[in-house]
């Protein structure tokens, strides 16, 4: 082209090197501008974007998970950004890669936003464990920055799609386990034990709430009291947990709450009272780090209008969700998402890594 056509950042640089023309992998300077302001790029139908985002918001508010995956599917497949990025694989690989970064960053905006208001609320109600938050947050910064700076501008859309598909298959595995007789039995047992304990507390009277209180700070062992009981954790493990989870989240372009919460409750053994606020803080720190790195270092372009349109759909969906939830049993919702996750996971994994989707898409 020889000109960036007024486009800022890496997208402008890549467009400058693109061959002019109307064919695949070419840029037609006279074509109407589409997504990210690129002439000839897909024109996202805003009504379709609102409808898809409504579906994402509905999933967020009913299932309490899987919304980030569906947001990614929207960017890659429904709005046609993935197929468009793929056309530049051979003609302008740099444009293919920078569009991949833009897709990842768009996913993170949508998913990571969920953490902002939660952090403010938990901060106000003093439900953040600062030693844990700092260890996890420091790890999140290192992990998110490393993943975004090392992979920004270097990952082709096909590679990204393949890894995204792999991640979705792992999510499907977790969801599937929860619906198996073993998973259901464990859930029922937990529910029964919780109800039995609730009854005991009713009879004995509630325990006075003292909240979280930091006691000792150390590199290998930090201690805090939680409702009077002493609790300790290894900050080094929290730090490395933050590094790994934030790196995966930044690479895939998701928030990471799905990974932080089970890590802190199952592996570190912390109570949800603390995990809720602390994981929201870690997601927020990781999101800010990776988005800033993708935009500043990797030069990822953003289509802000598209994010705004999707947020409208998300809040519409989150208003519909609670009104429809009572008509659909939780287990059937999970089964529906297992089928969807398997379909999307297999499709993306095979299309990304083998060039051909094993399911129609």
């Amino acid at each position, binding site marked *: 082209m020889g000109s960036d056509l007024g486009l800022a950042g890496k997208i402008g640089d890549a467009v400058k090197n693109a061959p002019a023309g109307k064919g695949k992998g070419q840029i037609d300077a006279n074509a109407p501008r589409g997504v990210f302001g690129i002439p000839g790029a897909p024109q996202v139908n805003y009504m379709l974007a609102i409808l898809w985002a409504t579906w994402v918001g509905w999933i967020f*508010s009913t299932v309490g998970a899987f919304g980030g995956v569906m947001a990614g599917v929207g960017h890659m497949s429904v709005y046609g950004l993935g197929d468009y990025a793929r056309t530049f694989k051979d003609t302008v690989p740099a444009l293919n890669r920078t569009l991949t970064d833009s897709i990842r960053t768009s996913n993170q905006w949508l998913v990571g936003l969920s953490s902002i208001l939660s952090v403010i609320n938990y901060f106000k109600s003093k439900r953040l464990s600062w030693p844990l938050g700092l260890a996890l947050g420091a790890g999140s910064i290192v992990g998110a920055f490393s993943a975004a700076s090392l992979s920004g501008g270097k990952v082709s859309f096909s590679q990204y799609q393949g890894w995204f598909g792999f991640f979705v298959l792992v999510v499907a595995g977790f969801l599937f386990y929860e619906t198996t007789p073993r998973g259901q039995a464990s859930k029922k047992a*937990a*529910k029964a*034990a919780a109800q039995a304990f609730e009854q005991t507390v009713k009879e004995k009277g509630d*325990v006075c709430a003292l909240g979280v209180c930091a006691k000792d700070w150390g590199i290998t062992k930090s201690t805090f009291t939680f409702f009077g009981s002493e609790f300790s954790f290894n900050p080094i493990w929290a730090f490395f947990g933050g590094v790994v989870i934030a790196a995966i989240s930044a690479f895939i372009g998701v928030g990471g*709450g799905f990974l932080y919460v089970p890590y802190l409750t199952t592996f570190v053994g912390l*109570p949800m*009272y603390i995990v809720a606020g602390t994981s929201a803080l870690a997601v927020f720190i990781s999101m800010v780090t990776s988005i800033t790195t993708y935009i500043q270092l990797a030069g990822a372009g953003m289509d802000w209008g598209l994010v705004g349109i999707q947020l409208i759909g*998300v809040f519409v969906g989150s208003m519909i969700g609670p009104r429809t939830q009572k008509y659909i049993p939780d287990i059937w919702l999970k089964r529906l998402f297992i089928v969807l996750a398997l379909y999307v996971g297999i499709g993306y994994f095979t299309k990304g890594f083998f060039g051909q989707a094993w399911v129609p898409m």
Partner: protein
Amino acid sequence: MAEIFDAIFISLYRLTGNPLWDYFIGTFLLALLSVLVGQGTAFLVLSANRNHLENLDSRFATLSRLTASAMEMGDMQSYKSLNKEANDAYGQVFFNRFGLSAASLWPVFFALAWMQEHFAHILIPIPFLDSKANYFVIFLGSYIMARIFFSRARRHFVDHPGQSAESSTVLNAR
């Protein structure tokens, strides 16, 4: 429609005649407008979903309190079970909050889209600092200031003692 919004937003950037001051004042006013519209829609979502959100919050709060009680009593079996239950409840609370975040923040992205269209290539010198910033950084700083300003103004003008309970519920839920 786009032309009307364009004309309104541009007028926010022509208040003093000094280009630098106009840029900062206009961006602050644009951010304040985003805060006002966002808070309005967040209030609508909160009003529509209040019962649902309160039930979720209450369930999560109960489970958190019971988890604490189990630990206080040294009942680790119940502690683990309750923690698992609280984990599920938290997932619901967290993602329902996303609806509120989306309702509150969507205007920000339209404001950024408008600024990107008009100021993408301009770097603005930061007063008292030897550095320059793009439209995103200036808008982000302005938005944080606008939210603080809005929050203080609401506390001063709206949250008087007669309405404190209702207002603090809304405030906490956001």
